[in-house]
């Protein structure tokens, strides 16, 4: 839990938003009980009371079926998803703490979005390619990117720096939505190569307003590119609610571009896994792009620099807390006997160890050498860079000489 989540007195009333979230909450529970209703809603356009979402595990930890998406996981696989989410949340909390301690300049927490990220991340094959925003710490985890690699840019020692091709996980992209075009271009290349891999582009509800996202939908549709657009609608683009971005449910945007869209319970790791797997498989088999809207909630602040008490109510957060992605899977694991106390205890220990490893790694992360300013600007070199590098080196050296 991040520091931002501490309860405070609401500064202004927001009855409209509050009422809407309540309605969504009720509807989610209803949808889980009625697969038929879910199917009807999925095929229908926006209904007056809003769209249904694909759900396979209710907030209460009940397994439910969906007519279009199914999943059958072994207890080991279920425990694996739980472990992924717990470790990701722990890593994320540790990073937030490190920011508070001054070890990081900034951190963008994924708190609350673990299911969306682990479900979709675990749906990818090793040869698929991922284009993240700057909040996909859980997806990075699934791709095998060491969590400590993600912290360099937030500490200010690099702008990313990992090798994207090592885990087929592109660098974080900070300018909103730009990476959806890179993903689409990459997918066009996959198709040209005749490869049977797929690409997944992450973005958020705010990014859905960006021209680049619309252009990526157009290009992907026109070239039938094997790309899945995975939108984590966490309800807030910093201080702006989704209502400031769209007048239709975001998944419905896909229809206008000529490919399918589906809304999934973004706090249900099973549904996110099943839907993303299906979407990626669809892409791999030449059926083109698909939009997945993972309906979730940003439990923390936008980043450690943000103060959500200025614009949203704690009641809203509480409603979503009841839909917590980790708790519902834990309930299910305990109820079905898929995990025992020993598992949870061992995971707690592993979690502590990860946190310690992250802490140590960050505190020992060296500042880059001064000359790094001039490194890797060009692959083939550049005369001006060479000249300025030499000037800078001479300037620095002049102090050393004076010191002697």
């Amino acid at each position, binding site marked *: 839990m991040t520091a931002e989540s501490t309860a405070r007195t609401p500064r202004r009333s927001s009855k409209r938003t509050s009422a809407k979230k309540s309605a969504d909450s009720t509807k989610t529970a209803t949808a889980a009980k009625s697969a038929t209703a879910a199917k009807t809603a999925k095929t229908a356009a926006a209904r007056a009371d809003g769209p249904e979402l694909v759900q396979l595990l209710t907030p209460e930890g009940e397994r439910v079926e969906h007519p279009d998406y199914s999943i059958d996981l072994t207890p080991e696989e279920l425990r694996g998803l739980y472990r992924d989410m717990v470790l990701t949340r722990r890593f994320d909390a540790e990073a937030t703490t490190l920011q508070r301690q001054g070890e990081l300049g900034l951190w963008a927490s994924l708190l609350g979005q673990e299911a969306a990220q682990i479900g979709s991340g675990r749906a990818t094959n090793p040869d698929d390619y991922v284009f993240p925003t700057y909040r996909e710490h859980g997806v990075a985890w699934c791709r095998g990117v060491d969590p400590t690699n993600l912290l360099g840019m937030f500490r200010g020692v690099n*702008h990313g*720096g990992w*090798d994207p091709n090592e885990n087929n996980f592109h660098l974080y992209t900070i*300018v909103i939505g*730009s990476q959806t075009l890179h993903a689409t271009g*990459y997918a066009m290349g996959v198709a040209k190569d005749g490869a049977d891999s797929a690409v997944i582009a992450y973005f958020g509800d705010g990014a859905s307003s960006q021209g680049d996202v619309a252009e*990526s939908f*157009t290009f992907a549709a026109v070239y039938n590119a094997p790309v899945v657009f995975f939108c984590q609608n966490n309800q807030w683009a910093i201080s702006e609610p989704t209502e400031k971005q769209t007048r239709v449910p975001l998944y419905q945007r896909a229809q206008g571009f000529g490919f399918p869209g589906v809304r999934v319970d973004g706090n249900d790791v099973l549904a996110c896994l099943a839907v993303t797997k299906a979407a990626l498989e669809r892409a791999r088999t030449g059926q083109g792009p698909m939009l997945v809207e993972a309906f979730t909630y940003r439990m923390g602040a936008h980043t450690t620099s943000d103060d959500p008490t200025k614009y949203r109510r704690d009641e809203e957060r509480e409603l979503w807390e009841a839909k917590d992605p980790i708790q519902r899977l834990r309930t299910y694991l305990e109820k079905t006997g898929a995990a025992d106390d020993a598992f949870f205890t061992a995971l707690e220990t592993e979690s502590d160890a990860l946190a310690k490893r992250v802490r140590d790694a960050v505190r020992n992360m060296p500042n880059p050498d001064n000359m790094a300013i001039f490194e*890797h600007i*060009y692959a083939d070199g550049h005369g001006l860079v060479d000249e300025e590098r030499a000037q800078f080196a001479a300037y620095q050296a002049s102090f050393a000489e004076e010191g002697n």
Partner: protein
Amino acid sequence: MAAEKLSISKAINASLRTALENDPKVLIMGEDVGKLGGVFRVTDGLYKDFGEDRVIDTPLAESGIVGTAIGLALRGYRPVVEIQFDGFVFPAYDQIVTQLAKMHARALGKIKLPVVVRIPYGGAIGAVEHHSESPEALFAHVAGLKCVSPSNASDAYWMLQQAIQSDDPVIFFEPKRRYHDKSELDRSAVPAALHAARTARAGTDLTLAAYGPMVKTCLEAAAAAEEEGKSIEVLDLRSMSPIDFDAIQASVEKTGRLVVVHEAPVFLGTGSEIAARITERCFYHLEAPVLRVGGYHAPYPPSRLEDEYLPGLDRVLDAVDRALAY
């Protein structure tokens, strides 16, 4: 192979064809570059011979063109994208400046972005608004990009070959008013380095430095000045990033006077940077301040006024006279 005489647009076409033939990873992308062969016909015939998988008619979305080209480059392709006109590049400016230019550095060199962005640029073709601009300084200002502009058929052919082979993003500015000017291309020649300036005309009294469309204007000015007994050296800079300051310095140390000419506005333009750096490098060799001739701090004017806005023979000679008067 003997030298042949052909236009700049045909030389670019030949260069693209060679690149497509030599490297299966080279792709042509842009609006109308396929069946139509581009609005200037620069890609004429390539779609027919290489097919729609290699010569790609894109949706009408410049940011999308460059953004997907970045993705294709990440996948191992070498996209050569065409922006239809100079004034249409700005929807793609974010992708070029924020993504294309910086991605190699952000990955600490672990990925490369061999993308060429071809932009027909400059005025004097009587076009409507947004079809005559010279935005090169806006790109040269950005670390991570390289910017070049050929002035003749041979450079058009060879510099494009080199730009496509470069592992860095290159903005390739094509002097559209000179597209149909013919000059010699020797395809068996060993080309000069991509970013090296070339002495287009030797002289002793003053150096005119230019690139792209203004090289011809400067050569005409030098010829006119010769009739008045002035010996003018003309440097074809060929590259705006990096700039071959060594070549300019060598010339100025000989002539003592420098006038930089471009169509782009002089304020904070390529000429300003050259003036500053050459003043630093050649302070004791200069007989006169470095002068700049170029566009004004005004939106590109309606075409009926463009002859007054653009540097022509007389404005270049006026600057030559002013420099020589010191």
